[in-house]
């Protein structure tokens, strides 16, 4: 028994003083789990973000998204130009018809040119059924067949219709979840809602795409994927709560609104975006509530400059 105790003391001393004791050696033969790549990426991104707080936070480990962001600006500018040209082409005749003499529209019929008011031509464009691509006005064709001409004339004889948009487009259809997530991840969402002018462009886009929707169903689908309500940013961002966070089921705390709880389940980057949007919307109290809870939950998170010193409440 005494020998056993002495042996134990010897082994314990070895365990305390040597890194390669028998027990330590056995321990090191156990499986050696390590953090997964996602966790590694999150930690490294956090470390870098803290050193460069001006860098916009992006979800960790998504290189493809960051690469897309690089050419987003030129793409956006090009798209803007195309849209502006489209607006000018589509809306131009309508504006002329309200302020000046209608811009004439010519139809060539076997060499004879008929002139119609632009308003009628535009109304025709809107009212033609989607499955009738023949409704486009044949200006550069010398021989229009009688049937087609009849259709054009019928349209011209109809009363000038107002610019009624189809219901689907008028409701400013919502983005599907995948599109919304991608828009947020790439920063398009924030850019689209950065200021009022962006919202205006967006609305114009809706209108144009709605017109296209009247001409072709494919265009309607396009409108659905692009048109977004200008004031829906906060709500949409809240909907991006990742599934795993939802699964964790954070306990609701008394005194916190449902919206605040929902926000608290977002990724920190998404939550910050929501808070910034609240500040921009002038909902300062809610923004401060969110910020307070955010700081509590992520004390180490380096806040962007505008949230470090949020603007004072206007009197």
């Amino acid at each position, binding site marked *: 028994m005494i020998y056993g105790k002495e042996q*134990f003391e010897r082994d314990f001393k070895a365990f*305390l003083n040597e890194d390669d004791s028998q*027990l330590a050696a056995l321990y090191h033969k156990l499986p050696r789990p390590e953090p997964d790549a996602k966790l*590694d990426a999150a930690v490294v991104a956090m470390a870098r973000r803290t050193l460069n707080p001006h860098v916009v936070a992006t979800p960790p480990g998504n290189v493809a998204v960051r690469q897309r962001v690089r050419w987003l600006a030129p793409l956006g500018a090009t798209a803007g130009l195309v849209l502006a040209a489209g607006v000018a082409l589509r809306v131009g005749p309508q504006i002329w018809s309200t302020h000046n003499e209608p811009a004439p529209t010519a139809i060539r019929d076997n060499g004879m040119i008929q002139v119609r008011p632009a308003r009628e031509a535009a109304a025709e464009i809107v009212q033609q059924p989607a499955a009738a691509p023949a409704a486009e006005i044949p200006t550069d064709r010398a021989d229009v067949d009688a049937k087609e001409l009849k259709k054009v004339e019928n349209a011209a004889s109809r009363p000038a219709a107002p610019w009624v948009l189809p219901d689907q487009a008028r409701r400013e259809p919502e983005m599907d979840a995948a599109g919304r997530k991608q828009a947020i991840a790439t920063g398009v969402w924030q850019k689209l809602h950065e200021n009022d002018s962006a919202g205006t462009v967006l609305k114009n886009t809706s209108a144009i795409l709605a017109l296209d929707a009247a001409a072709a169903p494919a265009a309607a689908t396009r409108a659905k994927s692009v048109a977004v309500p200008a004031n829906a940013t906060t709500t949409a961002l809240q909907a991006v709560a990742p599934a795993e966070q939802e699964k964790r089921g954070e306990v609701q705390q008394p005194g916190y609104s449902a919206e605040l709880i929902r926000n608290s389940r977002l990724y920190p980057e998404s939550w910050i975006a929501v808070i910034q949007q609240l500040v921009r919307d002038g909902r300062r109290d809610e923004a401060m509530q969110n910020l307070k809870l955010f700081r509590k939950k992520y004390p180490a998170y380096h806040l962007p400059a505008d949230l470090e010193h949020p603007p004072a409440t206007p009197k």
Partner: protein
Amino acid sequence: MGAEKTDEELMLAYANGDARAFDVLYQRQRGMLYRFILRSVQDRPDADEVFQETWSRLIASRARYRVEAKFSTWLLQIAHNLIVDRFRRTRPQAGAEETESVFRELDVPESERPEQVLSDFEQRRRLQLALDALPHEQREAFLLRVEGGLALDEIATATAAGHETVKSRLRYAFAKIREKLAE
């Protein structure tokens, strides 16, 4: 290539804005820290959360870092504090069912065992079970010793416990594990 920088030098470099230093430091410590946390909290999602939070705290306090102790002691101290907080908040004790299952496995009578000399695999399995069955403080002290490679004083620093307390915890842990392995 000059001599490898120590963990402490890397941490100071990171505090001064060298992101590459953090990468090296992280690569060195990630496995050890993760295993220490995982074996302490015994749940992967919890371990992921504590692991991330540990680094988050370290990053946040990088400017205050001073070389007063080994870097790993400081790192493990942060992890220890978070684990203790978690235990206090969510899981004061291991579930009865969990404990039962461990004891069921450990309480197999001698006569029912086919071999006295255990295979390597069996030894590892028993060590794992013995570790799981240890009270939290003893398990943590053991892990800080064998996984973190900390000496007695460093464990005392990391866990904010007295030297003798730590020694006592390690002694109990050592005795229980040996007992289970020798059964």
